[in-house]
Structure formats: structure tokens, C-alpha cells
């Protein structure tokens, strides 16, 4: 274990996150189980029920966990950055991520753990955001309790739309708690596992990637021109997403077709994958002015404004995904049963549609920001 200020702070954060995640999972599962049972007859209607109190507690825990998960994202990279001077030959965070590769002890798990953490972190933030969006929409649909009115067999035969949303948000909280617990646990394990004795196998991103090929395996030599197909497909996908989002987000109220929304979600996922390839193979060497250097860690350190552009794109993609989650909750059985006989969209349905529309507009803003910022940075770096 390498003990420095960042490691101590990170361990502290991990501990709090694990505790919060366990508490959140317990409270949320309890709330979900209780929502199936009938309220006791002698309960006062105007008094806050145990279920409502659990709702408040879950909301509070979820909010804190969301904040901590957001804070833990840059914290991880600050920690990795602080490890760079520990090994001769390690030049950037990429080098630290390679520590332990090719060893036989427990250190051999380090790269795998780090890759899992790096994949889980965006998932945790996405889940937290999805919960927040569902929760806010439930509040808008029915504002008499922090989670809307939970499905209650005494009140109505079919659950209320807001109740369906609230229940959906509870399931999202369970997923958030599980992902956070795994993420924080793995990060704590990464900090604690021994590293100093680990043999470095190509710690420097320059030596790893530049000699052989780009991270996506497209480049073979430094003088090879950037692949045209990547330029073209990135442009087409970005323009397509922006056009699609503008068309769907500015439709009249109540006309958002779910098929188009799923297509946009699929497009958002595809754009994120394609853009990551574009960033590694084209943008990083271009912006760093180093034709053989395909390292995103170096890009974000040397050209920090590119991180802002990428965050705008990721935010845009997440917003589209959250819109998809809202629509997914809306398609659940309880909702459909409630609105089956109604020709006109109900208030709750309009609220959800408005929420989806707002998210798609935010998504559009993210994509447009990226489409302006990155090309501008590339033109300036030429």
C-alpha cells in the first residue's frame, strides 16, 4: 500500500460510500417490500407513515451517495496521478494503470480491478442521475410525498402513475446502492493491495502505444494518416444525433414515439463508443501535437479544455439515457393499466413527456457543445 494524503482521503471516502450503500439498499428494499402490504386500518391518514419516512430516508441517502459518487470520480484520478512518481519510467496515469501486469502475486489483480472501477464509475453516476430524474418526475406527478405515493392496495385497484414512477425510482436506488458498494469496495481494495514490489511492464504510454499502434489498433506507424472512415462516421453520427434530438425534443406535447426514443438511446451509446475511438486515434495525437501519442490521460492533463468537451458529450449521452429510463418506467404494467381507457394523455403522462423532452434538450445542448468545442480546439491546435 502506498500511503499518501490522497490514499487516506480515498479510503475514507470508500468507507463512507460502502456504509451508505448498504444502508440505502436496506432501506430501499424494505420500502419496496412494505409497499406490497396493505396499510393498517388504524393508521392516521394525515400522519406521516413509516413508508413515507423510509421514502425520506432513502431520498436523503441517495442524494448523499450521488454527491459522493460524483466527488469520487475525479478523486480516483487524483490518486492515480499521485502514484506516478512511485515508479521510475511511469510518465502518466496510463503507466500507473499498468502496474501489476505480468506479476504473479496479488498485484496481478491491480489492472483488472482498476479497469472495473473505471467502467463502474460512469455506471454509478448514470444510475444516480436516472434515479434523480425519476424521483423529480414522480414529485412533479404527485407532490404529497417525497417519492410520490407508493403503490398501495388499499387506495386503488391499480397503482397510480406517480406510484409506478416512485417504485421505478426505488428499483434504481437498489441498483445504485449495489453498484456503489461494489465500486467503493473495489477501490478500497485497489488502494490497500501492495504495489511497490509490482514489476512494471511498459508503464509509459508513449513506449506502449507509440511503438506499435494506436489504442484501437488502427495506426501502425507514426506517419500513417488518420483513417478517413473514422472522421466520416464520427461526423455522420454526431450530426445524426443532433438532428434526431432536435426533431424529437421540439415535437408538440404528447407526440414522442417510443421507437424514436429507443433509437436515440441506441445512437447515444454508439456515439460514446465511436467518439472514444475518435479521441484516442485522432483527437489525442492531434491536440497533443504528437502524432504517435494515443493517450487520453495525457490529453486531459495537457489539454484540459478537451475534458470539458468530452464531459459535455458524456452528459448529453447520459441525458438521452435518462430520458430512455423515464420512458421505460412509463411502459411498466401499472402505468399502462391506469391509462388504458383514457384517450387523452393524463397529467402524469404529460409530466413524464415534458420530463423526457427537457432531458432531450439538455442532451442536444451537450452534443452541440461537443460539436463546437472539439473541432475548434483541433483547428486551433493545427
Amino acid at each position, binding site marked *: 500500500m502506498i500511503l499518501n494524503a490522497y490514499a487516506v482521503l480515498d479510503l475514507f471516502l470508500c468507507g463512507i460510500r460502502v456504509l451508505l450503500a448498504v444502508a440505502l439498499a436496506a432501506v430501499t428494499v424494505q420500502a419496496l417490500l412494505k409497499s406490497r402490504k396493505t396499510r393498517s386500518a388504524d393508521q392516521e391518514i394525515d400522519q406521516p407513515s413509516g413508508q413515507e419516512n423510509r421514502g425520506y430516508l432513502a431520498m436523503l441517502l441517495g442524494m448523499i451517495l450521488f454527491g459522493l459518487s460524483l466527488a469520487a470520480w475525479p478523486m480516483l484520478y487524483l490518486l492515480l496521478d499521485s502514484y506516478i512518481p512511485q515508479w521510475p519510467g*511511469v*510518465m502518466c496515469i496510463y503507466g500507473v494503470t499498468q502496474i501489476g501486469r505480468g506479476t504473479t502475486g496479488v498485484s496481478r489483480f491491480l489492472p483488472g480491478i482498476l479497469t472495473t472501477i473505471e467502467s463502474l464509475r460512469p455506471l454509478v453516476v448514470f444510475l444516480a442521475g436516472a434515479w434523480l430524474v425519476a424521483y423529480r418526475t414522480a414529485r412533479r406527478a404527485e407532490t404529497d410525498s417525497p417519492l410520490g405515493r407508493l403503490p398501495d392496495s388499499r387506495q386503488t385497484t391499480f397503482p397510480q402513475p406517480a406510484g409506478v414512477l416512485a417504485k421505478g425510482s426505488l428499483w434504481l436506488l437498489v441498483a445504485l446502492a449495489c453498484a456503489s458498494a461494489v465500486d467503493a469496495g473495489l477501490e478500497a481494495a485497489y488502494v490497500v493491495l501492495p504495489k511497490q514490489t509490482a514489476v512494471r511492464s511498459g508503464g509509459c504510454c508513449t513506449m506502449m502505444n*507509440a511503438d506499435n499502434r494506436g489504442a484501437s489498433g488502427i495506426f501502425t506507424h507514426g506517419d500513417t494518416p488518420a483513417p478517413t472512415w473514422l472522421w466520416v462516421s464520427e461526423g455522420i453520427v454526431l450530426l445524426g444525433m443532433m438532428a434526431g434530438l432536435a426533431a424529437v425534443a421540439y415535437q408538440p406535447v404528447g407526440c414522442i414515439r417510443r421507437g424514436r426514443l429507443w433509437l436515440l438511446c441506441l445512437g447515444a451509446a454508439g456515439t460514446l463508443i465511436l467518439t472514444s475511438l475518435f479521441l484516442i486515434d485522432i483527437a489525442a495525437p492531434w491536440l*497533443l*501535437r*504528437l502524432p*504517435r501519442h494515443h493517450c487520453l490521460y495525457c490529453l486531459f492533463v495537457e489539454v484540459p*479544455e478537451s475534458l470539458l468537451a468530452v464531459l459535455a458529450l458524456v452528459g448529453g449521452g447520459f441525458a438521452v439515457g435518462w430520458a430512455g429510463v423515464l420512458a421505460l418506467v412509463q411502459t411498466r404494467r401499472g402505468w399502462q393499466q391506469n391509462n388504458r381507457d383514457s384517450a387523452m394523455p393524463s397529467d402524469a403522462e404529460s409530466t413524464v413527456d415534458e420530463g423526457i423532452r427537457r432531458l432531450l434538450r439538455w442532451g442536444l*445542448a451537450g452534443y452541440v457543445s461537443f460539436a463546437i468545442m472539439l473541432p475548434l*480546439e483541433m483547428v486551433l491546435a493545427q
Partner: protein
Amino acid sequence: MTRRQIMFAAIWLLIVVGVPLLGHLARESQSARCAFDGQPIVPIYRVRVERLADDKFSFCCLECARRWLEGHAGNPRVLVTDETSGREIPASEAIFVRSQVVTTSATGNRVHAFANQADAQRHAESSNGQILIGARRPFAQDTAEHKLSTKVNTQSTAE
């Protein structure tokens, strides 16, 4: 559009256009960086490679220059920096010493360049090193090719 929306759009546009411009301006004033790995260049370890009159590259150490040359064709002119005086000399005239002292931690380069024999000898003795000769010298092939092409060019010009 309401006034609030126009204000919001103006601020957003200012950020989206202004941040890349500010970042570019801030980086322009920074010191030179290695053309291979982007690391800051320590002046006494600087290596310069000139392929054509307007095609010049600076590197943070001999190792970066060597690796860069592996991927680039042509007959480059390699200039290294004398660690004692800090002045540039052609690689073909330099005396190279491999010692225990690492110049750049990222590449692990331990080869040092000197303009005169006495300085090289002193460094080799103090840092448990040895003077590199013949094919073990860095850029041995590149500088030989450059010399040959320069000689051929001179001869053809004379003819």
C-alpha cells in the same frame, strides 16, 4: 425566446467558444515540449533533429529522439546538447557516456552527451559509466547516413 433564454444561450456560447480559445492561448506561452512524448524539455538534455530546413523537432532526451527516428524516414541531422556548456553540437562530433545517472525518468535514458573528451571522462569516472564507441554510439547509423548524403550532395554540386 424570452430574455432569460437569450441570456442563457449567450453565456453558453461564450463558454463553448471561449474555453478552447483561452486554453489555446495559455498553452502557447508554455515552454517547449518533447516532440515524441510531450514532456517538458530540460535544456541540457535537449536533442534536435532537422530533416529539412523547416522540419525541425526537439526532444527531451536521446532515447526519445532515437525512438522517433525509428518511425521516420529520411537523412536527418541530429544535434545534441553538451551537458557541460549547454551548447548544441552535431551528434557525430559528440562523445557519449552511458552512466548510472538517468536523464529522463519516463524513458530511463542513461546516455549523456559531451563536447570534449575530458568532460566525458570525468562524468564516466564519477558516475560509474563508460564512453560509447563505434556502433554503440547513439545515432551511429543516422549520422553516418547523413554524412554520406551530405558528401554525395557536395560532390554532385561540385560536378
